[in-house]
């Protein structure tokens, strides 16, 4: 059997998930998604912080770890059981959550070139949800200043302070639409792997 191509997996923006209802398989509405939390080391989504429904609702003290997610659908995030929710402090401690938000961060290459500012994070659905790229407002350095473009990320996402560092070669795989972005991510990652293999052989 041929394994499914990564490019055929669904791509979505992380901010699309904010406000999506969290529903149990028993049909009970539990909460809404507030924040998306991902592991910088490898990029898988670790879970979601939650809030109650309503315009002036407060953040909830419990959070949804990825292992409790049954499925992420277009209109709702399905969970098996409310018993699997964990304290929000366990998933993303407040101090980490305050400093760890990547939206509006600057994207720099490892050669020091500024590519733009993060508007959203692109997730790829498969067995899990993985961070595969950023949607950025391009800077002058990218030659498409002010436009929204997608930039692929390597397997490991490097973050430091308010800057997000990507390999310089990522700038060659910039995509202007989300539909073609999956292929750009695959090409970029295979280029990085080839580079690593060559480095090991030498």
């Amino acid at each position: 059997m041929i394994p499914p191509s990564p490019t055929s997996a669904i791509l979505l923006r992380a901010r699309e998930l904010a406000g999506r209802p969290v529903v149990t398989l028993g049909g009970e509405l539990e909460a809404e998604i507030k924040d998306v939390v991902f592991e910088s080391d490898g990029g898988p989504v670790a879970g979601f912080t939650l809030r109650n429904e309503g315009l002036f609702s407060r953040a909830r003290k419990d959070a949804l770890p990825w292992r409790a997610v049954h499925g992420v659908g277009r209109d709702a995030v399905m969970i098996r059981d409310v018993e699997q929710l964990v304290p929000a402090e366990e998933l993303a401690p407040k101090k980490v959550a305050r400093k760890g938000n990547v939206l509006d961060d600057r994207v720099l290459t490892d050669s020091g070139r500024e590519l733009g500012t993060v508007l959203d994070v692109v997730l790829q659905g498969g067995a899990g949800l993985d961070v595969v790229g950023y949607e950025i407002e391009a800077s002058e350095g990218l030659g498409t200043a002010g436009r929204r473009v997608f930039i692929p990320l390597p397997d490991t996402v490097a973050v430091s302070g308010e800057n997000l560092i990507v390999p310089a070669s990522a700038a060659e795989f910039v995509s202007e639409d989300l539909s073609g972005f999956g292929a750009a991510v695959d090409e970029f990652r295979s280029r990085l792997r080839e580079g690593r293999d060559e480095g090991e052989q030498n």
Partner: protein
Amino acid sequence: MDWWVWVILAVIVLVVLLTLAVLVQRRRRRGRVIGLGGGDR
């Protein structure tokens, strides 16, 4: 001042406060994307 001036001022203050509250709440509801670990974070 006449009583109706106070009423108008109160209405204006209420509208401004309500607008600010809605703007702040909309910003909060935008959601964040939080990266765990990695460097200084």
